[in-house]
C-alpha cells in the first residue's frame, strides 16, 4: 500500500494533461495491480468455478441445471420482479421527496432534508428486525389492533414478499432522492431561463430540460436500488421468503453437505454477477463516474406555496419519514425491553444487553471501527489517485478503471464474498495460511466494495475544480506544486472527506460479503448482529444494531455539516 500512498503526490507533480513521471506510472501500475488481484482475479475464479466440474473440466452442465430447474427460475423471476418493484416504489417516494425539498419552501425544510437521508443508515438485518417488532404478527400495531380494536387475526404486513418490498422501499428511497437532488442541482438556472424565454414552461419545460438532464442521475440511482434489493439475502430470510436468487445463493453456499447444492450456490452467485454486469452495460450510457461537468452546483430558486399546500407537504413527508423510522423505534424498544412479547411495548426495561455487547465483548465495536478505518485508508490510497487519473490525465486504461469502479457498485456483495472464498482459499507461500484465514481479508474486501464512493467524491470535486482554475494559477506563474497546494487541495478536500465518510459508513454496515469471509475471533458488529440474531439473542442483536445506527447517524451528521446535501453524486 505504501507505493499507492506515495503515488498521488508523485503524480500531481507531473504535468496535468500529459507528461507523467516514472513514480507516477509506478503508482498507476500499483492501482491496476490492486484491481487485478482483489477484483478481477476473484471474479474470474468465480466464473472458472461455475464453468468447471469439481475435477476441473469445462462444463455447461451447472448452468443447464440452473436454467432447467423450475424453482431457481422462479427465484430469478421473483428477484427481478422484486427489484423492479422496489425501483418503482422508491422512485415514487424518492422523486417526490427530491422535488419537494428542492423546489418548494415550507417549514422544517432543512430538517426534512437531513432526516430524508437518515433511513439509509440501516445495517442489514437490523431494518427488518425493527419492522417485525412493530409490524409483525405480534408487533405493536397488530397487538393494538387485536387488543383494543377487536381484530380477530393479525394483519400480515411482514411475512412474504410484501414485507421485503416494504423494508427495501423505506430503506432505499433516500438513494433515489440523493441521486435526483444531485442531478437537479447540476441543472444551471440559465438553462431554465433560456427555456422559459422561448416559451417552454411547466410540463413542456420538464420534458425538454429537467427530464433529460436528470436521467443519468435517476438511472444510476435506480440501478443501485435494483442491485441492492437483488443482492439482499438477510431481509427475505427473516420474513420467511426463500424463493429469491440471493437467498438461494446464500442458503446453498452455507450448506456444504450436498456438494451439488454447494456448486449451485457458486453458480447462482456467478449468475448474479453476470446479471449485474449486464444491467450495467444496459445502463452504461448513463452510469459512469463521469458526469456532466459544471463549475458549481446551481442555486435553485424555491417557490413559495400557500398554507394548505405547505401543510400537505409537511404531512406527506412526515408520514413517509415516520414509516421509515419504524425500524429505529422497534430496535430501540427491543434493545432495552426484557421479555417483550404480546404487549404493544415492553413491560420491563434493562441495560443488560448493552452491557453484554459493548462492555463484556467490546471486540465487535473495536473490530468494526478498525476494519472500516483500514478500509477507508485503502479507499483513499487507491481511490484518490484513481479519480485524479480519470479527471486529469489521458492515460491508457483509465476508461477501463472507470468501468471497473462502476462495476464494483453493481456487484452483489454475496457474489464478491463467494468469489473471495473460492479464489483465496489456498495457503499463501511463506505464510502457511490462506488469505481468507487472515483478518486483513475483511478490510481489503470492504475497501474494494466501498472504493467507488471515495472515487466519486474525489472525482466530483475535481470536476467542480475546473481545470481552468489550475490553468489560471499556472498562467500567472505558479508552479504545479503550488497550484495543487493552493488551488486544488483546498477545493477538493471536502469531496475526498465526504466520499471517505460515505465509504466508512457503508463499510461499517457491510455484511453480505464479510459474513461469508469473517475470520473466527475477528467478528465485527454486523457479523455480531447476525450471530446474535441466529443464536437466539435477539435483544443483543438489537442493542448492537442500535449502536451501529448511532455511529452511522453521527457520520452522516458530519457529512451533512461538511457538504450540505450536495454530495449525492457519490451514489449516482
Amino acid at each position, binding site marked *: 500500500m505504501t507505493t499507492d500512498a506515495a503515488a498521488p503526490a508523485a503524480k500531481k507533480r507531473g504535468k496535468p494533461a500529459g507528461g507523467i513521471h516514472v513514480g507516477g506510472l509506478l503508482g498507476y501500475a500499483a492501482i491496476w495491480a490492486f484491481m487485478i488481484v482483489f477484483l478481477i482475479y476473484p471474479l474470474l475464479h468465480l466464473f472458472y468455478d461455475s464453468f468447471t466440474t469439481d475435477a476441473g473440466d469445462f462444463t455447461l452442465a451447472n448452468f443447464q441445471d440452473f436454467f432447467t430447474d*423450475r424453482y431457481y427460475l422462479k427465484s430469478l423471476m421473483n428477484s427481478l420482479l422484486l427489484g423492479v418493484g422496489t425501483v418503482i416504489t422508491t422512485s415514487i417516494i424518492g422523486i417526490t421527496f427530491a422535488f419537494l425539498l428542492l423546489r418548494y419552501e415550507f417549514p422544517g425544510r432543512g430538517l426534512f432534508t437531513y432526516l430524508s437521508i437518515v433511513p439509509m443508515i440501516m445495517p442489514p438485518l437490523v431494518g427488518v428486525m425493527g419492522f417485525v417488532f412493530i409490524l*409483525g404478527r405480534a408487533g405493536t400495531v397488530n397487538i393494538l389492533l387485536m387488543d383494543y380494536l377487536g381484530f380477530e387475526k393479525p394483519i400480515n404486513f411482514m411475512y412474504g414478499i410484501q414485507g421485503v418490498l416494504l423494508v427495501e422501499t423505506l430503506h432505499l428511497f433516500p438513494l433515489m432522492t440523493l441521486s435526483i437532488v444531485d442531478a437537479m442541482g447540476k441543472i444551471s438556472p440559465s438553462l431554465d431561463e433560456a427555456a422559459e424565454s422561448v416559451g417552454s414552461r411547466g410540463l413542456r419545460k420538464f420534458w425538454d430540460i429537467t427530464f433529460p438532464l436528470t436521467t443519468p442521475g435517476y438511472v444510476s440511482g435506480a440501478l443501485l436500488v435494483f442491485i441492492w434489493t437483488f443482492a439482499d439475502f438477510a431481509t427475505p430470510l427473516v420474513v420467511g421468503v426463500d424463493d429469491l436468487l440471493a437467498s438461494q445463493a446464500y442458503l446453498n453456499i*452455507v*450448506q456444504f453437505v450436498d456438494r451439488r447444492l454447494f456448486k449451485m450456490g457458486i453458480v447462482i452467485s456467478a449468475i448474479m454477477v453476470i446479471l449485474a454486469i449486464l444491467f450495467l452495460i444496459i445502463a452504461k450510457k448513463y452510469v459512469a463516474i463521469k458526469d456532466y461537468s459544471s463549475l458549481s452546483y446551481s442555486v435553485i430558486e424555491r417557490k413559495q406555496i400557500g398554507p394548505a399546500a405547505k401543510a400537505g407537504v409537511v404531512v406527506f413527508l412526515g408520514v413517509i419519514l415516520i414509516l421509515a423510522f419504524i425500524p429505529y423505534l422497534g430496535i430501540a424498544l427491543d434493545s432495552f425491553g426484557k*421479555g417483550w412479547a*404480546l404487549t404493544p411495548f415492553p413491560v420491563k426495561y434493562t441495560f443488560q444487553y448493552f452491557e453484554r455487547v459493548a462492555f463484556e465483548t467490546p471486540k465487535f465495536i473495536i473490530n468494526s471501527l478498525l476494519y472500516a478505518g483500514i478500509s477507508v485508508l485503502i479507499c483513499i490510497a487507491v481511490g484518490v489517485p484513481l479519480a485524479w487519473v480519470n479527471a486529469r490525465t489521458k492515460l491508457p486504461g483509465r476508461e477501463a478503471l472507470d468501468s471497473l469502479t462502476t462495476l464494483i457498485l453493481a456487484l452483489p456483495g454475496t457474489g464478491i464474498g463467494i468469489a473471495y472464498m473460492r479464489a483465496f482459499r489456498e495457503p499463501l507461500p511463506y505464510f502457511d495460511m490462506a488469505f481468507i484465514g487472515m483478518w486483513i481479508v475483511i478490510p481489503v474486501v470492504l475497501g474494494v466494495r466501498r472504493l467507488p464512493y471515495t472515487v466519486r467524491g474525489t472525482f466530483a470535486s475535481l470536476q467542480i475544480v475546473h481545470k481552468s482554475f489550475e490553468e489560471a494559477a499556472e498562467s500567472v506563474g505558479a508552479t504545479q506544486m503550488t497550484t495543487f497546494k493552493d488551488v486544488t487541495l483546498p477545493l477538493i478536500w471536502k469531496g475526498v472527506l465526504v466520499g471517505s465518510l460515505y465509504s466508512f459508513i457503508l463499510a461499517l454496515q457491510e455484511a453480505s460479503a464479510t459474513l461469508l469471509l469473517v475470520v473466527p475471533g475477528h467478528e465485527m458488529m454486523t457479523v455480531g448482529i447476525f450471530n446474535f440474531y441466529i443464536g*437466539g*439473542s435477539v435483544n443483543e442483536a438489537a442493542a448492537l444494531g442500535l449502536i451501529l445506527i448511532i455511529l452511522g447517524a453521527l457520520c452522516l451528521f458530519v457529512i451533512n455539516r461538511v457538504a450540505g446535501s450536495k454530495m449525492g453524486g457519490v451514489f449516482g
Partner: protein
Amino acid sequence: MMKRALMMFSVAAFAVLGAWSLSLAQAPAIENELYLITPVSKDVHDPMLKAFAAWAKKKYNVDVKTSAIPKGTPVAYGQILEWKGRPQADVFWGGEGTLFDNLAIEGLLEQVQLPKAMWDAIPASIGTPVPLPLKDPKKFWVGTTLEPYGIIYQPTLLKRLGVEIKTWEDLLNPKLKGQIAQCTPDRSSSSHASYEVILQTYGWDKGWEWLTKLAANTGIFTARSRDVPSVVAKGEFAVGFAVPSYMAFAEVLAGYDVKFVYPKNAYVTPEPMSVLKGAPHPKAGHAFIEFCLSEEGQLLLSGLGVYPITPGLKVKGPEGSNQEKAVAFTGGMRSFFETEIGNVYDDKIAGEKKRIEDVNAYFRKEIAEKHKEIVK
C-alpha cells in the same frame, strides 16, 4: 579476572538454562486459544466457554481466549469438509453422531483423549426399541449431554386458539394453520432428526404425508433452527417444531413465557464432541472435552436446560436455582437414566449419506418448493 568473569557467566547461563528447562516442565500444558465450531447455541456454548477459561486458568494457569463459530450442524459439517484438514476451529460440538462418523471416515477427526474412568462412565447407548449410541466405539467422538428435540409453544396464543398440545399428532390440528414455525431439514439437524423420527414411525410414504400436513400448518420456515424458539417466544408464531429443550429453556431464562413438550419417541441428542485433525490448538481442544465431561462441566450444563450424560449425576439444585427451574420446565425429569427412553430413530438408516440426501431432496422438491400450494 577473565576466569572469574567466565565462571560467573557460565553460572548465569546455567541458571537461565535451568530456569528455562524448569519452566518447560511446567510449560502451559495447553494452548492459550480455543475455537469452537458448533450448532449448540450461544445460550449453552457461551457459559461453557467462559467456565472453561476459568477452569483452565485454575488447572493449567493459562488464560485461554475462547471464541465460537456458530453454524447449523449441516453447515458446520460442510465447513469442516471444506477446510480439508486445515481447520480454523479446534472443536466440533453438537448435532448427531452420524455426521461425526462420516467425518471420522474422511480422516478429519482426532481420537478423543479422556481419562479411562471418564470415558467408561458414559453408557454406550440409550433408548428402546432402537438403541442410540452416546459415544463412538472407535473413540472419534463422545457425547457430552442429553436433550430431546421437542415442541415449544406460547401458552397465551395457544389458549386463544383453543388448542392443547401433548403429542406430535396435536400439531396437525387445523386450528394451527399458519401458526407453526419450523426450520428446514437441510439447514437444521434437529429438524432433520425429527423428520426421521416421523418417517421411521410411519414409514416413508405415510411419513411424508404427515409432514406435508405439518407444512400446511406451517407459517414460516426459518433460516436457522435457533430462530424457531425466538419467533415463538416473541409471539410471532404459536408453536415451534423440533426445538432442542435447552433453546426453549433459554427463552424462559431470558424472561419469555414459553412451554416445552417432550413428545413420545422424540430424538434425543448426545451433542457429540470431537477435536478436529490439524486443529490449531489441539491440546486446548482435548482439555475442553475433559472439562465438559467433568462433574463441574456437567453440573453447569444441568443448569442450562440439558441433562447429564452419565447415569450417576442428576439435575438437582437449591430451590429457585436454574437446575430446579429446568426440571420443572421439562416436566419433573431429573435424569435420562431414570425412566425408559423411547427411540425409533435408527442411525444406521438415517445416517447413510444417500438417505440424508434423499430426505433433503424430497423435502425441497415436494414441500419447500410447493409450500404456497400446500398451504392452500
